[in-house]
């Protein structure tokens, strides 16, 4: 329970502009809090901006990150403080004062349009740190091409103060006289997501990093693969620019290493990251590229990662070699020789390129930040958090997420950030909407089918467009087009001046459609639409032609053709504009309560977080008791007391007046949609009640797999790990007096039928092994495993277990351990036979007890619930989130969220984090009075609809349904995302997309093909 300050400040300081900080900022700002987002560098984006692709979906990292950058950068309630450092934090939770120093950028962010002319003239060239020195940049530069804010900055350490940039800048944005500024920010809470650094590979001299040019780090390799990187995505090795044919990855560089460097932890992401790099390299590189990953264990414990690993091996031909590489040699050609033991001999192999999978480490800067915040760090510099309150730091009111709290991948970081946002919102719920701003617009002018009066604004973008495209000619071409009553060119269409000019032109010339020919609508459309709204026009009366990216940039060498194409694009835009209509938005009221399904830890955490944020909650648990799977757990690997945690949480949930508990109940029907679901709950006594709720959280957990084989169920000495834990907890005398215990890993996981890694079993096995050792020091414990996956900071328990004599024997899945009844007299004699692949020897253990690390399998109720909520399950039967990376608790269906084991196997702390994240995401719905629907959504012409239902079948958002009575498709505007799939699939032309109607697109094509006919 949170102690809430009486009158907190409704603002939050978020530290770190990586994906974690961005997510926390957006979640907070979108749920009614003002956010100061602090970033040390000149632009947000963090580590993710430097990645090429992300696993396991191989999405382009920048492509999925970029919309978030734009949203963050444009958000009315997020104040971006780049080049800034926290100096001090004073005060109490709910009312902190943060002192922040912002270093001068020497470029006015408001004025700079990002045209890049300044960098063109800058005479200073220095290695580009973002591209890890594989390319150069100027002293006036932008961190990376898609950086946000898009404004340039000057690196004063390199600047020669020649003033060329200032003189070149047409927007008068360069200001060399800028001074540092100190901000004193009143905030109620702090979310720290300052991220990580990669391990400095030069610290391990054996690999020759820094000496051999073709030994590079993973992140450097990412830059080489990246389409926006130094080689434009062409796979080239540094020494000679040759395309490498043989690439080796060396894992655990700086991780799991207590000998060469004191980093005893596992960096968690490197295995899957290396697999991704290998797969992508094979796609980019030559077809016969040989990719070899040298590793200790392959740790693909994340959701979908094991399949990814399987595909890499089986489909992409990536070779995995279980060998620790001790040294790399270089030959005269720059090729690299790796020596490694194989089958008792030492093998030598030559590679063109060696990629070092360097681990995550904490920087000195982060340590200093922690000191200023007053928060506690562990021996490696990671922020200390409690397992059962995993985003709380040692300082109340300061929350932390992401790799700052331990090695984390992107979805873990995103979930942590959302969870931290939820914690902050719980603390500050009384101050929601107290510090935020909102915009007021004039009423829209009546439209009434008037003749189109189009204004065309052609942007010069400094000389960015005008240097190639004949902007005047394009403007004149536009002026001659039908219905164009005003055409003008502007220096920078996106400047504040131009916005005023557009507003004035709208009223002066009675414009009712606006076309801007400039850059991409992806980044700039919202700005101009805002201007239209300010001018009293519906924002959908706007159209953009991208004559920069699509003309002046790509056809730089052919100005004539670039100009002709720009004219074509403008003509097409005007043709579309002629048909544009205002699109109405309608408001749908929001019921400010949530339905949480599942009374396990995830469900309870989510419910209590939502209640703490001030929302009503209906918590439905199908059994008669709260606690779920955690009832079987006594403690965690690190010794946290799960039992009393669950007890406390259950009491808190039971006693909270805003939580309506439904025990022994089932959700039997779901109707409605985001903001106003109407669900039917069948209570324990058979009564059916209808619950109206704005959002739903599915936290229905998972189940342990019941193993077949291994004599399970046939011999009392063969137990599942949960059963074994119960025995140990109960002080079972047999367990206490055992001499030999065998724990078999992957009993039911990572095999056909259940091809996923159950993630928790290795840690659980270690937990039990250590506990049994504590109780019975004479016991001999054998852990039969395939890969030990004690990822992250759990690795230290693996070390401890080994030190304390636990025997780890690796078996081959093709030759699994065999359990027979032993012939030993007395007791439950079991004989376990297996082959240790490390030593290549067959061994037999006479065991008193055999513990099976059984798989975590989806809950039996998942399929039914998925049907009710129209949300998808993945191929394994777990709930499938909207996006594996950036929307890890959302569904494509708005207003429904998932957390805990229902989403996939995870540990209790991970469940708690995800539950917090689900609460944060649900609160974004619940904190609003209404949801805007309509606009760019599908419209069905029922006169044309034949009710074939294909639109409903293909809609990924379940926004289309067939009315059984009328036999016509109906679109739920509140759910429709305007993706257009239904439009494309409708043969009858009955589905049309508002703002992108068939008629509009037809007109564009028509105006293109008819050349200058429009004149």
């Amino acid at each position: 329970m949170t102690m809430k300050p009486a009158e907190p400040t409704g603002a939050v300081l978020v530290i770190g502009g990586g994906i974690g900080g961005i997510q926390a900022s957006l979640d907070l700002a979108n749920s009614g809090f003002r956010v100061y987002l602090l970033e040390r560098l000149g632009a947000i984006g963090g580590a993710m901006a430097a990645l090429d692709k992300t696993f396991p979906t191989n999405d382009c990292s920048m492509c999925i990150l970029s919309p978030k950058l734009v949203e963050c950068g444009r958000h009315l309630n997020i104040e971006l403080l780049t080049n800034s450092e926290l100096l001090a934090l004073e005060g109490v939770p709910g009312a902190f004062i943060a002192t922040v120093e912002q270093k001068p950028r020497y470029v006015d962010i408001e004025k700079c349009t990002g045209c890049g002319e300044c960098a063109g003239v800058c005479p200073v060239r220095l290695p580009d740190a973002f591209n890890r020195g594989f390319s150069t940049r100027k002293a006036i530069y932008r961190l990376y091409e898609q950086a946000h804010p898009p404004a340039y900055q000057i690196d004063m350490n390199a600047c020669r103060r020649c003033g060329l940039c200032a003189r070149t800048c047409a927007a008068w944005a360069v200001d060399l006289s800028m001074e540092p500024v100190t901000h004193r920010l009143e905030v109620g809470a702090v979310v720290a997501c300052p991220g990580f650094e990669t391990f400095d590979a030069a610290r391990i001299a054996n690999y020759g990093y820094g000496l051999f040019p073709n030994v590079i780090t993973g992140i450097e390799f990412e830059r080489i693969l990246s389409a926006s990187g130094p080689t434009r995505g062409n796979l080239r090795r540094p020494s000679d620019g040759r395309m490498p044919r043989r690439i080796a990855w060396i894992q655990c560089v700086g991780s799991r290493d207590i000998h060469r460097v004191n980093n005893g932890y596992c960096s968690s992401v490197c295995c899957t990251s290396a697999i991704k790099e290998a797969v992508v390299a094979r796609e980019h590189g030559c077809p016969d590229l040989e990719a070899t990953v040298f590793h200790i264990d392959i740790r693909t414990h994340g959701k979908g990662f094991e399949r990814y690993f399987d595909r890499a091996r089986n489909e992409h031909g990536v070779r995995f070699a279980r060998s620790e590489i001790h040294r790399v040699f270089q030959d005269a050609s720059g090729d690299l020789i790796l020596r490694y033991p194989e089958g008792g001999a030492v093998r030598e192999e030559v590679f063109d390129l060696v990629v070092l999978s360097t681990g995550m480490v904490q920087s000195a800067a982060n340590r200093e930040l922690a000191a200023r915040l007053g928060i506690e760090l562990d021996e490696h510099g990671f922020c200390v958090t409690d397992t059962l309150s995993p985003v709380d730091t040692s300082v109340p009111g300061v929350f932390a997420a992401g790799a700052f709290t331990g090695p984390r991948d992107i979805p873990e970081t995103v979930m942590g950030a959302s969870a931290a946002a939820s914690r902050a919102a719980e603390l500050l719920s009384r101050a929601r909407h107290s510090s935020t701003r909102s915009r007021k617009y004039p009423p829209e002018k009546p439209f009434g089918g008037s003749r189109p009066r189009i204004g065309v604004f052609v942007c010069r973008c400094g000389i960015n467009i005008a240097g190639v495209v004949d902007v005047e000619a394009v403007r004149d071409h536009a002026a001659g087009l039908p219905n164009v009553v005003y055409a003008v060119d502007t220096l920078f269409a996106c400047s504040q001046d131009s916005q005023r000019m557009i507003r004035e032109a709208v009223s002066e010339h009675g414009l009712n459609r606006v076309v801007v020919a400039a850059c991409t609508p992806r980044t700039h459309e919202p700005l101009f639409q805002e201007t239209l709204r300010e001018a009293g026009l519906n924002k959908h009366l706007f159209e953009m032609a991208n004559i920069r990216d699509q003309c002046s940039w790509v056809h730089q060498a052919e100005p004539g053709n670039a100009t002709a194409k720009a004219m074509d694009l403008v003509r097409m835009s005007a043709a579309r504009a002629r048909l544009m209509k205002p699109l109405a938005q309608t408001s749908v009221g929001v019921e400010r309560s949530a339905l949480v399904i599942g009374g396990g830890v995830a469900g309870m955490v989510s419910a209590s977080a939502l209640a703490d944020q001030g929302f009503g909650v209906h918590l439905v648990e199908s059994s008669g008791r709260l606690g779920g799977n955690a009832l079987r757990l006594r403690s965690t690997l690190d010794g946290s007391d799960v039992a009393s945690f669950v007890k406390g949480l259950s009491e808190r949930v039971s006693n909270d007046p805003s939580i309506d508990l439904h025990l022994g109940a089932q959700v039997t029907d779901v109707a409605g949609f985001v903001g106003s679901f109407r669900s039917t709950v069948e209570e324990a006594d058979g009564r059916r009640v209808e619950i109206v709720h704005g959002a739903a959280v599915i936290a229905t957990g998972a189940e342990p797999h019941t193993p077949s084989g291994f004599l399970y169920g046939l011999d009392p000495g063969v137990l599942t790990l949960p059963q074994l834990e119960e025995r140990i907890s109960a002080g079972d005398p047999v367990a206490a007096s055992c001499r030999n215990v065998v724990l078999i890993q992957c009993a039911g996981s990572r095999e056909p039928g259940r091809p996923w890694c159950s993630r928790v079993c290795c840690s659980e096995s270690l937990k039990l092994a250590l506990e049994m050792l504590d109780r019975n020091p004479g016991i001999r414990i054998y852990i039969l495993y395939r890969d030990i996956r004690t990822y992250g900071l759990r690795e230290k328990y693996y070390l401890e277990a080994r030190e304390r004599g636990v025997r780890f024997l690796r078996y081959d899945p093709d030759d699994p351990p065999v359990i027979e009844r032993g012939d030993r007299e007395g007791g439950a004699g079991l004989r376990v036979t297996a082959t240790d692949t490390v030593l290549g020897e067959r061994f037999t253990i006479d065991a008193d007890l055999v513990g099976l690390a059984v798989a975590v399998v989806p809950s039996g109720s998942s399929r039914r619930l998925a049907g009710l909520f129209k949300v998808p399950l993945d191929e394994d039967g777990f709930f499938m989130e909207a996006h594996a990376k950036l929307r890890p608790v959302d569904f494509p269906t708005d207003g429904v969220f998932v957390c805990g084991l229902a989403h996939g196997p995870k540990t209790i702390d991970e469940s708690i984090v995800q539950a917090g994240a689900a609460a944060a995401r649900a609160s974004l719905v619940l904190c609003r009075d209404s949801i805007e629907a309509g606009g760019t959504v599908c419209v069905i012409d029922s006169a044309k609809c034949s009710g074939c239902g294909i639109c409903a079948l293909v809609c990924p958002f379940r926004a289309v349904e067939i009315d059984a009575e009328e036999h016509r498709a109906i679109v739920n505007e509140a759910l429709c995302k305007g993706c257009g799939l239904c439009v494309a699939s409708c043969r009858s032309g009955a589905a049309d997309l508002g703002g992108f109607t068939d008629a509009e697109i037809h007109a564009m094509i028509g105006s293109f093909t008819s050349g200058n006919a429009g004149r």
Partner: protein
Amino acid sequence: MRNPFVPIPMTVERNRVETVDGGIRTLTLSFPADADRGAFDFVPGQFAELSILGVGEAPFGIASSPAEGGLLDFTISRVGRVTTALHHLEPGESVGLRGPLGNGYPMSELEGGDLLLAGGGFGFSTLRALARFVLKQSNRSRFGDITVVFGARSPGLLLYRDDLEEWGERRDVRLAVTVDRGDGSWTGLTGTVPDALRRLDIDAGRTTALVCGPPAMIRHTIPVLAGLGVAPERTHVSLEMKMKCGIGKCGRCSIGGRYVCTDGPVFRLADLENLPGEFR
């Protein structure tokens, strides 16, 4: 012989919004060529085809009286491509016109008797032409009592507000304006055109009824007129129908052996009753 498919070029003089939703507008057109103006001889009830080359052509009743100095009004409801393009015309722009087409109201028969003009929606346009013609000072004396009934779905969809206002103030015309559904500020009649007709007190023996409107209105109006005692021989109905060529060739406006475009659009109810029951 003149090619009947070649339109007369006309110039847009005015483009007025008639209804609050902007869905109906009235275009006022003038003849740039005197010869064309001189040759354009029409009676109320006739129609013309308006066209924009490359966009299309559509028939519209002439909404102005012949006695208006060479200016022609056309009231256009925006329903498709052609009507949208016509709505977008601005003064000074050009539009094609073929006409006058059709037979028009039987003016000689009307003289001397009472007139009952009943119109609904934008079908009222040719009745407006007729009303303006008969109410013109120089013509008024040739007609008896004149009653005008005009109905629209809602107050916002009423047309020709200036005319309605003027007629409402005149003593020599009885005006009944009705709307299907009123709004807060509507104080006039509510109900359909047949509803309004039922309340009328007319001298059926002297009256000639002229009806124009959508098919449903006509269907319901005819029995009411019969109830009032207006003989089918003295009831004239102007049909709204799909036409293309306007000159009795293209075949689509055939009703029985008649073509609406050349034999109509105004039909004596007595004749209409002998025709197949289409278009009614």
